[in-house]
């Protein structure tokens, strides 16, 4: 499976400002130290090989949308945040109008997780089939309301694709698009659901917008089971632990620390920090990653845990 991250930001899409770009250029020039680059390739090598990621790149600002490419020809997505827009454009550039099926698993119906759908171009193309899966009762209502006046000028009924809604049951495993999928109830305002995807012995867990009170032993054991031996866990690490147990307690989000702990207990192989706080700069997200790598190092008992921080455009193969 190839996992593509189209949107990785939490709560609200953001974009770099002119000041942010200027700062990156200044930092790059300082790092170059007056060096001259004779060829474009030399400059490219410097950018790729010597500059820190937070200067040479950006983590991006689209809200949650992750693709699971199973190689079957059908598309599988988790959530429809604003990352769904570049995903849809990518599909259109590839498929050149050929009819396609899209399987979309929703964590929940909060705006940042569905707001990309009105801009998902394949949903306007006759012949396409869009199947939206989730555990909430009001999924269809939320999508129709988002697509109606005065929120949006194009009514849901005008979508060219055939759009279907399929209700899933938490804890019940079923087969969709060649994947074994198991939803799990998570702690979040109005509830959210994580998904465990399994195919050919590989496991990917998508678990965002999920708060964990790890002193609740029963809940912790449930999530350790849910993450068990996963090849990749995409995890809501929006806040610091101190925030999640104080001023942001019960806001429905988690931390890098809890991600490491649950993955260590579950013997998962790869933790991917996801749903970044919208006020965080690239430098701040990079520092969270550095600290998380250090935490894993000082708390490791036996199996090593790979850790990365999701960015718009990142791909991970499991």
């Amino acid at each position, binding site marked *: 499976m190839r996992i593509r991250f189209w949107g990785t930001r939490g709560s609200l899409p953001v974009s770099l400002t002119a000041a942010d770009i200027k700062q990156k250029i200044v930092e790059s020039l300082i790092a170059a130290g007056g060096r001259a680059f004779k060829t474009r390739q030399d400059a490219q090598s410097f950018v790729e090989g010597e500059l820190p990621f937070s200067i040479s790149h950006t983590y991006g600002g689209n809200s949650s949308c992750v693709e699971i490419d199973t190689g079957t020809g059908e598309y599988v997505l988790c959530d429809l945040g604003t990352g769904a827009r570049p995903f849809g454009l990518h599909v259109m550039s590839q498929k050149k109008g050929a009819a396609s099926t899209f399987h979309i698993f929703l964590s929940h119906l909060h705006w940042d997780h569905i707001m990309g759908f009105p801009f998902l171009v394949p949903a306007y193309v006759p012949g396409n089939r869009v199947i939206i899966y989730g555990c909430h009762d009001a999924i269809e209502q939320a999508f129709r309301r988002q697509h109606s006046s005065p929120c949006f000028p194009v009514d849901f009924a005008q979508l060219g694709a055939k759009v279907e809604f399929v209700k899933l049951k938490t804890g019940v495993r079923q087969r969709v698009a060649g994947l074994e999928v198991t939803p799990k109830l998570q702690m979040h305002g109005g509830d959210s659901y994580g998904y465990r995807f399994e195919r050919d012995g590989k496991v990917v867990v998508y678990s965002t917008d999920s708060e964990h009170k790890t002193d609740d032993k029963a809940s912790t054991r449930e999530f350790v089971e849910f993450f068990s031996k996963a090849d990749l866990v995409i995890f809501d690490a929006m806040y610091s632990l101190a925030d999640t*147990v104080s001023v942001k307690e019960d806001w429905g989000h988690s931390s890098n620390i809890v991600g490491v702990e649950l993955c260590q207990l579950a013997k998962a192989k790869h933790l991917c920090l996801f749903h970044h706080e919208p006020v965080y700069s690239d430098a701040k997200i990079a520092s969270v990653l550095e600290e998380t790598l250090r*935490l894993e190092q000082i708390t490791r008992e036996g199996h090593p845990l790979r850790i990365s921080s999701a960015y718009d455009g990142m791909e991970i193969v499991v």
Partner: protein
Amino acid sequence: MQVAVQRYADVLVVAVDGRIDYVNAEEFKAALMPYLTNGTAGAGNQVVLDLSRLEYISSAGLRVLMIAAREAKARQGKLIAVALQPVVREIFEISKFTLVFQLFDSVQDALRQISPTALAAMKSG
């Protein structure tokens, strides 16, 4: 995990030994909270947590500390952590607990700051 308590004048020093993780966090909470709860015999407004023998603390243990600190604050008291081992200090830093907890290098340093009377009591044995 073990908890031992010593009173010096108006300050309680609670020494924590071992590891605190999700398995024993509830036990730690049950052991700690009586010293911070209003109306409990032996409870104190000023509590110093001596963590010099604490080897590891997980998010579950840190959450207990936050609950305890909140309780202390509600009583106009203080919960202070001292003598963190390097690993525990790093966990405090990464979790950003260093931003919400007052930390000192030793019990003596903490007492010097919050209660000279307690420091004198400690020195007199």
